[in-house]
């Protein structure tokens, strides 16, 4: 058979590798800064400018690490491994270039918009609608290039790494499109199409599976290529690959609701989330086993080779995190972990251990290959390994500790039946842990800087191999499978079939959970007293979202005695029907705000937002002085009310035209009220809108209880 000559392009993998390391460093640095901000609020610099406060910085950190660091890591792996596994060149260099520059543009736009307070307010999906569209387009470019390559392959069967690439691609596309359904109000502002409970379910269906299909499955593909390559041993078990691939993608998608245990989400959905999370343990562990057992007979190499050391810890961290995750989705464990630092510890074991170490291992293996040389210093890589491991431990342990301290303090009652600790007592107790955590993060980052130096020196010492020549025979059109060949090999020969099967499997979980929540009325019992936000409150809510308050404050009181006593009556599904988007939050660095309305006087909020420690000594909240100087932009009221009504919020027809009159009346009444407390401020300021919103929170239902008691 005639051999065809072709070339593997190394340029794009190199570009993506550089992007991975660059954004990784930036993302981690932002993480370290955010970590220090929690311990030392002065680092928010919010007296000087609004852009760097924790509420805006934290989304940049998460987005940078997930989509910039890990994202580019995925693309590095795909652009390097896919052609080689298929014995062909990447289908289109041009599309590859568009993909690369498009993705980097998205990252820059993301950073700029998020720091400017342009956000949808949905965690890990904060980017506004124009960027969402751009992401979709670039994702399609990536998919085209990937499938173009697959369809022009010279290898009959697809290797397991490619199954993971395909499933990840199609699922991320589905998740992104469904979760990003939003109604634009202006170029930089949109409202989530879904409201309240439904929005929460869609969001965590997305959020959970972003972890699954962005941070996990593509990296399993990466592992399946680079780990056996680096250790030069055969993959442990082909049939385990099959079992764990299909079960993983099918089961993962159902587990989203475990992020909403004990919330106002219908309990059947919560139970489904828990049940599937438990079933997820072994499918996840399949990947770990195939990784670790592949090293069998080569453990002597692991002792020597830093690349393998990184891989071993990465796979182990994956195993730990995927066991911990299902445990966290058990109701009684979740009661402790939810809203606490436990979740933070959990994701960082995954991110720093699994994603970080796998990426570092890949880089230490790949960069010398790309530059046709040896790694500059193995010893330094070994040092990086130990520093990184220490960093992870120093990060995780204080967070676990803090989580348990928090839990036991939060639920402590005195014999008289009072809460034993104020929220601020808890904050004060865990600040030292925040310091330790930030140090752990800094140590980890130091290791990364060591790696950059090492790789830089490696690249300098070698010369870049832009193209690698290869040859292979073309695939014959006709193919008769040998007798007795395994049934699954049929799917491995048909990439489109694999794509469709994956899509069907990953759709099921979503369909079964989302559709009933949207269609069955009884899931969200209506509460007559719940009314739409007034125009001023709506504007205040958008400020709340802009400043990323949801990063530290939840708006969801769980039905626990210690939460009801602390925050007020537990939250009901019907209370959130006009919340586009929902703001339940996922972490309580500050107290829950679901029933903040009426708890304190306006002047308290006024002083507190200006300087939190004045009202709440020991608070670590940033101050927001700029809200006292900036005027509220009321030109948007019209379009905001209009958009809300389009999505079913019952504002009367034509209300948008007069909305600003109501807005001004309400603002004036707040200003007048503040005047009673010797505070003078124009009613046009942003702070007035924010106070209006905060004073509204959770009050609809208070009205109901008040009326029912009078009726009695």
């Amino acid at each position, binding site marked *: 058979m005639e051999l065809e000559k072709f070339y593997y392009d190394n340029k794009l993998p190199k570009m993506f590798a550089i992007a991975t390391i660059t954004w990784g460093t930036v993302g981690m640095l932002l993480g370290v800064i955010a970590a220090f901000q929690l311990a030392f609020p002065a680092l928010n610099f919010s007296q000087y400018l609004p852009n760097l406060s924790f509420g805006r910085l934290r989304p940049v950190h998460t987005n940078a690490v997930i989509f910039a660091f890990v994202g580019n890591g995925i693309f590095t792996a795909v652009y390097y491994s896919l052609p*080689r*596994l298929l*014995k062909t060149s990447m289908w289109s260099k041009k599309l590859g270039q568009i993909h690369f520059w498009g993705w980097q543009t998205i990252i820059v736009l993301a950073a700029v918009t998020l720091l400017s307070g342009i956000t949808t307010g949905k965690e890990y999906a904060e980017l506004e609608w124009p960027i969402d569209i751009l992401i979709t387009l670039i994702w399609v470019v990536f998919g085209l290039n990937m499938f173009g390559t697959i369809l022009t392959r010279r290898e009959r069967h697809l*290797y397991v*790494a490619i199954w993971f690439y395909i499933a990840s691609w199609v699922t991320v596309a589905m998740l992104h499109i469904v979760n990003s359904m939003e109604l634009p109000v202006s170029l930089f502002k949109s409202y989530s199409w879904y409201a309240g409970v439904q929005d929460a379910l869609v969001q965590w269906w997305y959020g959970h599976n972003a972890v699954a299909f962005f941070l996990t499955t593509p990296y399993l593909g990466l592992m399946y*290529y680079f780990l*056996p*390559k680096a250790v030069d041993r*055969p*993959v*442990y*078990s*082909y*049939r*385990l*690959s099959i079992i764990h691939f299909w*079960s993983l993608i099918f089961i993962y998608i159902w587990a989203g609701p475990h992020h909403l245990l*004990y919330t106002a989400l219908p*309990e*059947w959905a919560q*139970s*489904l989330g*828990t*049940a599937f999370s*438990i*079933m*997820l*343990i*072994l499918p996840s562990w399949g990947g770990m*086993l195939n990784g670790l*057992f592949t090293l*069998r007979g080569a453990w002597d190499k692991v002792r020597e080779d830093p690349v393998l050391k990184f891989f071993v810890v990465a796979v182990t961290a994956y195993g730990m995190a995927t066991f911990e995750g299902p445990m966290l989705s058990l109701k009684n464990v979740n009661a402790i972990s939810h809203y606490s630092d436990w979740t933070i510890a959990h994701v960082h074991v995954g991110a720093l251990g699994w994603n970080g170490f796998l990426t570092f291992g890949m880089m230490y293996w790949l960069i010398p290959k790309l530059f046709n040389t040896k790694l500059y210093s193995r010893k330094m890589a070994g040092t990086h390994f130990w520093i990184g491991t220490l960093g992870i431990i120093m990060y995780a342990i204080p967070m676990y500790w803090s989580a348990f301290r928090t839990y036991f303090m939060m639920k402590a*009652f*005195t*014999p*008289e*039946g*009072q*809460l034993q600790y*104020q929220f601020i007592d808890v904050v004060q107790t865990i600040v030292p842990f925040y310091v330790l955590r930030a140090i752990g993060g800094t140590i980890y980052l130091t290791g990364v800087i060591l790696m950059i130096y090492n790789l830089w020196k490696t690249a300098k010492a070698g010369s870049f191999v832009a193209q690698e020549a290869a040859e292979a025979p073309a695939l014959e059109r006709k193919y008769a499978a040998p007798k007795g060949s395994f049934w699954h090999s049929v799917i491995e020969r048909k990439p489109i079939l694999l794509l469709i099967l994956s899509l069907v499997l990953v759709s099921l979980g979503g369909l079964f959970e989302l559709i009933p929540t949207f269609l069955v009325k009884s899931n969200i019992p209506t509460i007559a007293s719940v009314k739409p936000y007034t125009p001023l409150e709506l504007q205040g809510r958008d400020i709340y979202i802009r400043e990323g308050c949801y990063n530290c404050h939840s708006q969801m009181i*769980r*039905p*626990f*005695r210690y939460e*009801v*006593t*602390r925050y007020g009556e*537990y939250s009901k599904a019907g209370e959130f029907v006009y919340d586009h988007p929902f703001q339940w939050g996922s972490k309580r660095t500050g107290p829950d705000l679901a029933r903040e309305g*009426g*708890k*304190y*006087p306006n002047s*308290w909020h006024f*002083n507190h937002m200006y300087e939190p420690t*004045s*009202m*709440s*000594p020991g608070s670590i909240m940033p101050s927001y002085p700029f809200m006292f100087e900036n005027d509220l932009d009321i030109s948007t009221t019209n379009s905001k009310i209009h958009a809300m009504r389009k999505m079913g919020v019952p504002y009367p027809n034509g209300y948008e035209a007069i909305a600003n009159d109501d807005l001004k009346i309400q603002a004036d009444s707040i200003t007048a009220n503040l005047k009673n*407390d*010797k505070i003078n401020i124009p009613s046009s300021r942003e702070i007035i809108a924010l106070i209006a919103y905060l004073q509204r929170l959770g009050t609809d239902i208070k009205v109901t209880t008040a009326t029912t008691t009078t009726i009695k």
Partner: protein
Amino acid sequence: MLLISCVAYGQADVPAKVSKGIVIDANMLLVIIAVLLLIPLRILSKTFIAAAKRHYLDNINSGPLKVLVPLCFVLINTSLWAQSTTAQATSAVQTTGNAQSWGLLTNTMTIMLLSVIGIELLLIIVFAVRTMDLIQKKSAKELSEDASHDIFSWFKEKWTAMNFKPIEEEYKIDTGHSYDGIRELDNIIPPWFTTAFIITIIFGIGYFYRYQIAKSGPSQIQEYKSAVALAEIQHDEYLKTAANAIDESNVKIMTGADLEEGKKTFQTICAACHRVDGGGQVGPNLTDDYWIHGGALKDLFKTIKYGYPEKGMISWKEQLSPAQMAQAANYILTLHGTNPPNPKEKQGTLYVAEAASSDTTSTTKMKTDTLIKK
């Protein structure tokens, strides 16, 4: 034993059914699983003893040992057997004690039952593994002799098939795949992996069944209600015994250490709105003669305890103990007349305390402040 456990279960079950009208059938399901699991456990334990007998009797020649070894195995086995059933019985019995709290009843019960099932599964695995080990230890020669009609040879085959292939034999399970030089073996999926996967699936189905179909597990609202009910009972009992049942009718003048405590409470909580010196900021001035809600100790206590939410004073009764509130109120009285700099303007009515010596007995007068009225 089994009978006892069933009877005990029945007893535990009935009152719950009657009192709440909810069928605890998920627990019943667990009992059934637990009982059913006893069957393979019994079989395996017997197999284990048989295997052990074969192994040890073949290798041991001295007479007494021949009797002793199997005897030990039987003993161990029966004691374990008894243990598991006892655990089951106690689990059922223990839960009867908690019958008053429905949520606790099912929770404890389920946890107990699950642990019984867990122990049973563990024993099954232990027996299975030990049996396999014993069989493997038999020499190959012996096995080949009676391979054709021996059930153990079937186990043996399965067991070797369930293990790692030694590296030298890897070529036998090489799939022949080579992707960019990456080869794939076709090792079996570890049996513990498959077993655990099946168990998690059963757990998942059971979990959903229990909470959503049988509804034998408490819903989150039921859990909340029982927690509150329990707290109320505890609180009532505490109040019966507690000496510090201070309320607005009996709050007394305090001195010394209590005032120090009151100062602490004031500075951490009240100072945010009333300023550290009590001069007032968001909240009113506490040092002057004018009070919105009365300046007597009892009034202060009441204001702190219940608050006047419509005026911005929140209720502290959930967060401060009666003693703390009394201390804070007493401390506030000491601020009277301190004339801090830059105070908030007077609000409310002029209040004059007659006999400052014993506030609780003094008749307090409220005089309308004509200045303010006019």
